[in-house]
């Protein structure tokens, strides 16, 4: 009947309308200018961050809370991971927290939008010289247009974590795992790899080719972001890096088969890839050896840095940071809290807390892998006070390698299109490794897309 048809048409139209509500906006927002930070602050402080905080996080928060507590500031901590959509919509409404934790690679994007404020004056107010207190490469990550837009924390340098049991089994030495000698490296990878049909049952080496694509490209002398913040994905050295990664994966059944195998790893569990001898080596950030301390009796570890093509140890800066939104209601309290949170005193408290955990938890086998704070001064202080030789020489060598390589880190650079550059880079590497596109073509397409994003943001 006519009415039935009308109802169907109405239902159709109604459902279709929802396609349009995907995009809305709001009012409010700020201007992206620095606040007049002052030591005379009060009120409350709202913080987003510290999801699943361990003793390192909570001990530092205690120190920072105590600092601002002296001015009767009440801190409300929302322990949640950074959510771009939530932050964006809240920014649109003007109802933002005073402090937000986010990955350092995203800071310039939000800075360019005027959503977060520069913190240079905050540092100046408390006599912090950022380029002296933090590693320069760490500060470079959060600098944009000559200003610093975030207070950084942590510096997780990636290096190659070796399974020396697998290496010994097939006669591969640590010297063979030198990425600047590509032919020897590939031979070592092939020796350690065990195939089951088309799929690997043991990977000689997991380069984490997509998630660590930037590391590989920079180690080959390439770049992802140029000094002006523009994307530089089609750099010819980037192409060489992908070609090398493809050779590594092809020696182990190809990217798709290798990735599926890696996806099945019990990364944090009792049957992790080092306990189960599923890898001969893999690129990991410094936090992973800390996870493996629980399995010290079951693993045999070593470590070596990724090398530049001229044979020098190399790593990249990565980690998180804290920003103060432009529309924050209490920027002065936020500034004081952040300076305290990342102070040598706070890191000292974190070092103590970690040492206590190490001593009280027999499952850690007395191994303290140290903390990589982003500040060389705090790193060294914690290492001197708490990182001692253990009963596990392999772990000691791993810890030493990560500490040594940290000084050789390089920043990816910062860009207002940082998020999109990162996304395009990873998608391009995925396409190239899967064989969808030739590496040069994939990077050219990624460069075009990233450049479009850059032009949209930078005008």
């Amino acid at each position, binding site marked *: *009947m006519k009415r*039935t*048809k009308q109802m*169907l*048409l109405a*239902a*159709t*139209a109604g*459902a*279709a*309308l929802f*396609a*349009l*509500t*995907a*995009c*809305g*906006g709001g*009012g*409010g*927002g*700020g*201007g*992206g200018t620095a606040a007049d930070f002052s030591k005379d602050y009060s009120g409350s402080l709202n913080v987003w961050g510290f999801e699943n905080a361990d003793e390192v996080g909570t001990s530092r928060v205690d120190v920072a809370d105590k600092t601002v507590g002296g001015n009767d500031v009440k801190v409300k901590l929302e322990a949640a991971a950074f959510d*771009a*959509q939530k932050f*964006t919509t809240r*920014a*649109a409404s003007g109802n933002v927290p005073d402090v937000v934790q986010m990955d350092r690679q995203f800071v310039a994007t939000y800075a360019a*939008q005027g*959503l977060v404020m520069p913190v240079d004056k905050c540092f100046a107010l408390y006599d912090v010289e950022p380029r002296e207190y933090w590693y320069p490469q760490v500060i470079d990550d959060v600098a944009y247009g000559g200003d610093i837009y975030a207070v950084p924390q942590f510096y997780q340098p990636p290096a190659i974590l070796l399974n020396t049991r697998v290496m010994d089994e097939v006669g591969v030495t640590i010297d063979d795992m030198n990425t600047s000698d590509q032919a020897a490296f590939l031979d070592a990878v092939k020796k350690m790899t065990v195939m089951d049909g*088309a*799929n690997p049952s043991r990977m000689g080496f997991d380069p984490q080719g*997509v*998630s660590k694509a930037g590391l590989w490209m920079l180690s080959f002398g390439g770049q992802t972001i140029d000094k002006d913040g523009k994307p530089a994905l089609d750099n010819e050295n980037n192409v060489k890096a992908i070609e090398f990664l493809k050779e590594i994966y092809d020696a182990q059944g190809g*990217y*798709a*088969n290798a*990735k*599926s*195998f890696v*996806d*099945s790893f019990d990364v944090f569990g009792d049957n992790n890839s080092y306990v189960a001898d599923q890898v001969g080596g893999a690129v990991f950030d410094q936090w992973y050896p800390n996870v493996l301390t629980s399995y010290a009796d079951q693993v045999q570890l070593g470590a070596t840095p990724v090398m530049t093509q001229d044979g020098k140890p190399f790593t990249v800066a990565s980690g998180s940071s804290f920003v103060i939104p*432009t529309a924050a209601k209490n920027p002065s309290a936020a500034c004081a809290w952040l300076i305290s949170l990342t102070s040598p005193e706070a890191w000292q408290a974190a070092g103590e807390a970690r040492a206590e955990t190490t001593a009280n938890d027999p499952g850690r086998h007395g191994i303290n892998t140290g903390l990589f704070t982003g500040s060389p001064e705090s790193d060294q202080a914690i290492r001197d006070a708490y990182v001692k030789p253990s009963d596990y020489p392999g772990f000691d060598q791993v810890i030493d390698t990560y500490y040594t390589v940290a000084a050789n880190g390089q920043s990816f650079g910062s860009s207002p299109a940082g*998020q*999109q550059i*990162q*996304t395009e*880079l*990873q*998608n*391009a590497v*995925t*396409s190239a490794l*899967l064989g*969808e596109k030739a590496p040069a073509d994939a990077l050219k397409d990624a460069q075009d*897309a990233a450049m479009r*994003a850059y032009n*949209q*943001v930078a005008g």
Partner: protein
Amino acid sequence: MANTMTVETTAGTRVFKTSKYNRREALAGYLFISPWIVGFLIFTLGAMIYSLVISFTYYQLATNTARPAGLANYEALFDDPKVMMSLGNTLFYAVLAVPLEIIFALFLAMLLNNVRRGAGVFRTLYYLPKMTPAVATASVFFLLLNGNQGAINKGLAAIGIQGPQWLLDPNWVKPSIVLMTLWGVSGTMVIFLAALKTVPRDLYEVAQIDGAGPVRRFFSITLPMISGAMFFNVIVLTIAALQTFDQAYLLFYRDTGTGAPDASLFYAIYLFQQAFRQFNFGFAAAMAWLLFLIIMIISLVQVKLGNRFVYYESER
């Protein structure tokens, strides 16, 4: 409001005085539906109008300012190859997913329709996937679809078939999302089940006496009698398929540290990235309106074609 009501009768037009009772009833009706009307006006119609305005501007979130852009955002849609790529992926998925969802849901509904004992239990069990959060479903499918260790490929290997790399091979990315979609087909199934319950049993009995087999009965009785529900499901599923977001996002984009194959870039995901990753709200709004137009056109074509095949019992 006038206090009269005009009614056409066989004896001519008669004018009645509207009673206070009727006015109160009408007022109560409006009051009851007012939450929806207010919600619709603000959160749907208001958002639509706002997004239409934004689509003709360069909108700056931080300052809540917008520079006029004319048609630039719409022109940019055709300059950005990812828009067409994501649209192509989405259309391909819709063409693949909708017929399979219809067939699978109808199959399940017919099975349930024939269950006599414990029908309620089975209906509940079959509806459970719809109640499962999408994140949980995606996590399970992420494991099931693993090319090496996943249960699906292990099952295929048991019968001598080498399963594909579902989540990595560009040719299998969209079928893997379709598989996940089929898992949640129970909403469609329930509509079919309700329609099947309305088919008079005597039609089948008469057909059976006339010698019609099960296949003939299905095509000559079942299908025409439930064609209204079929039509509704096709339209709703098509719209949902063209707006697909969560399945693809959860399988391929939830971890920002890993790349995703181009084949997994759906239109709604690219729209989301433009709005909330790149703050390109004008462009994203233009994308939303393009999708709206596409959905409207497809729906109108379906309605036009559907009217030829749909059997409305009350029109007889």
